[in-house]
C-alpha cells in the first residue's frame, strides 16, 4: 500500500488530498489565511488523522499553488497548471481543454490524453477575469456567494457590464440597483462578463472538446451556464472541482515515485 499526498495552497483556499493506488481517500479544505506554512501543516495533520496514518506512511508529497513554496514537508513542487491538467485527466480522461477559474486568476489549459500540458493561457492580474469579480458584486447585492449562481439563472434580462473592470463594475452594479433592476439580472450580467474574459483566454490557445471546468468556478452553476452559452459547447464538471489540482498533485507524486523504481 503506497499513500500519496497532494497539497494545493491557493490564493483564497488551500486543499489537500491523500490517494492510494490512484483512488482519492481523503480530502480537506482550509482558508489559506496569512500563514501558508501553518495552513499546510494543519491540512496534513487533518488528512493523516482521518486516515489514521503517520507522516512516514506517505511515500511522496507534491505541493502546488501560489503558496507551494511554504509546504515544508513536500518532496517536490509542481506548477498548478501541470497539476490541474493531471487532475482533470484522472477524473475525465477524455477532456482536452480545462477552464480553471480561481479566486484571483483564471487559466485555460489544453492537454493530451496522458494529462500533459500542450498549451495554456493565464489571465492578467485583473479581478474582472477571476472569481473575485463575483465576490465583489455578490457583496454589493448582499447575496451569499453560493447563492449567486442559482439566482442568476432566473434572469430573463441580463444587464451588460460596459467596462470589464471589477471596480467600475461595482459602481455599475450599484447604479443598476438604484434603477430597480432585479438582482438576478445583475448577477446574470456579471457571469456573462466573466464568461467573456474566459472566452478571450480560450481564443489564445484554442478550444478542443471535451471541455471541463475546475476550481471554485466549477461550483457556480450560473458561471458554467454562461461559459457554455458563450462557447457553444457543454462543460464537464467534476464532482468536487476545488480539489482537481490537489488531486493532480497527488497523481504526479505517485507517477514520480513509480518512475524512480
Amino acid at each position, binding site marked *: 500500500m503506497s499513500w500519496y499526498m497532494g497539497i494545493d495552497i491557493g490564493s483564497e483556499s488551500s486543499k489537500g488530498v491523500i490517494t492510494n493506488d490512484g483512488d482519492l481517500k481523503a480530502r480537506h479544505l482550509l482558508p489559506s489565511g496569512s500563514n501558508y506554512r501553518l495552513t499546510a501543516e494543519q491540512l496534513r495533520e487533518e488528512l493523516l488523522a482521518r486516515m489514521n496514518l503517520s507522516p512516514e506512511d506517505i511515500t511522496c508529497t507534491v505541493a502546488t499553488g501560489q503558496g507551494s513554496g511554504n509546504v515544508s514537508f513536500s518532496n517536490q513542487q509542481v506548477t498548478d497548471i501541470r497539476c490541474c491538467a493531471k487532475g482533470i485527466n484522472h477524473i475525465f480522461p477524455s477532456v482536452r481543454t480545462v477552464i480553471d477559474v480561481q479566486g484571483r486568476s483564471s487559466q485555460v489549459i489544453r492537454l493530451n490524453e496522458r494529462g500533459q500540458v500542450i498549451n495554456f493561457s493565464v489571465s492578467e*492580474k485583473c479581478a474582472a477575469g477571476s472569481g473575485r469579480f463575483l465576490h465583489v458584486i455578490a457583496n454589493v447585492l448582499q447575496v451569499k456567494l453560493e447563492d449567486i449562481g442559482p439566482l442568476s439563472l432566473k434572469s430573463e434580462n441580463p444587464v451588460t457590464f460596459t467596462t470589464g473592470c471589477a471596480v*467600475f463594475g461595482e459602481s455599475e452594479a450599484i447604479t443598476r440597483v438604484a434603477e430597480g433592476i432585479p438582482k438576478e439580472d445583475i448577477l446574470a450580467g456579471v457571469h456573462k462578463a466573466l464568461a467573456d474574459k474566459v472566452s478571450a483566454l480560450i481564443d489564445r490557445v484554442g478550444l478542443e472538446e471535451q471541455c471541463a471546468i475546475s476550481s471554485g468556478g466549477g461550483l457556480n452553476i450560473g458561471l458554467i451556464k454562461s461559459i457554455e452559452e458563450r462557447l457553444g459547447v457543454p462543460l464537464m464538471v467534476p464532482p468536487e472541482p476545488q480539489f482537481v489540482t490537489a488531486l493532480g498533485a497527488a497523481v504526479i507524486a505517485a507517477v514520480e515515485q513509480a518512475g524512480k523504481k
Partner: protein
Amino acid sequence: MTKVVIIDEDDKICAHVVSHTGAEHRRLANLVMLQALEQAGLSFDEISYVIATGYGRINVPFADRQITELTCHARGIASFFPGVRLAIDIGGQDAKGLKIKDGRLIDFVMNDKCAAGTGRFLEVIAAALGLKVEDLGEISLKSTKKVSISSTCTVFAEMEVIARLSEGVLLEDVVAGLHDANANRVARMVRRLKVEPDVVFTGGVAKNTGMIKALQDNLKCEVFVPEDPLLSGAIGAAILAREQTLEAMKKGELVQRGERRLEEATFFK
C-alpha cells in the same frame, strides 16, 4: 466636475467656476454658468461664443458648439506651456495621454476601461485606509522605502495594501508604493506615444503631489503642472471660442451662434 471659464479677447480669464457635476448638477450646467457670469459681471448675451466640452458636452443647451475634450485640452495646455509635446490627463474615471505638436493634438491614448491608472484607484485605496484622497500625496512623500504593489488591478492592490500593513510596513511606504503602481500603469500607456519633453500633467489627480513625483520617477523627466490643473479643458474651449469669433470678424461676418437656451438640460424625451 463641471468647470466654466470666461475669457476676454486677450485670453485673460475673467471668471472661473468649478463645481461637482453629480447626478443633478449635470442637468444644471446653467447654474454654474450663471455663477461665472456673476463673477465676471457680464450678462449671457455679452458672451460672444460658448463651446461645451467633456463627457457631458451634449447636456449643455446654451452652448453654440460642442468640441471633444481632447481637442480642448490640447489647446488649453498649449496656451500655458507652448512647448508641450505630451499631456497626461488623469481624472476620476479615466486617464489620457495626448501627443501635441505646435499646440495641436496629433495622437492620443486612453484608458477608460480599468480603474488602475486613474483617480479611482487612489479613491478606492483611500477609502480602504480610512484616509482622505487629498491627503494621500503628502503622506506618500514622507516615505523613504516604498513597497512594491501590483499595478494591474485596483481590487488586488487593495488586498495587497491590507496585507502589507498587517505585516507592519509603514503607512507612508505603502502609500508611496501605491502612487508608484498607479503612475507605472499610466507611464506604460503613454509610452505608446513616445514620451518627449515638455510633459504636462493635468486633471484632478495632478493636484496630488505624490502622483507628480511618481510620474516623474516613472517617466524619468520633469513633469509640469498648470496652476489649476482642472481648468485646462475649459480654458481650451474658451480659447477655441474666441478664435472662432475672431475668424468670423476677419471675414466681416458675425459668428454663427447656436440655439442657445440658458436652462437645464432635459433628458429621456
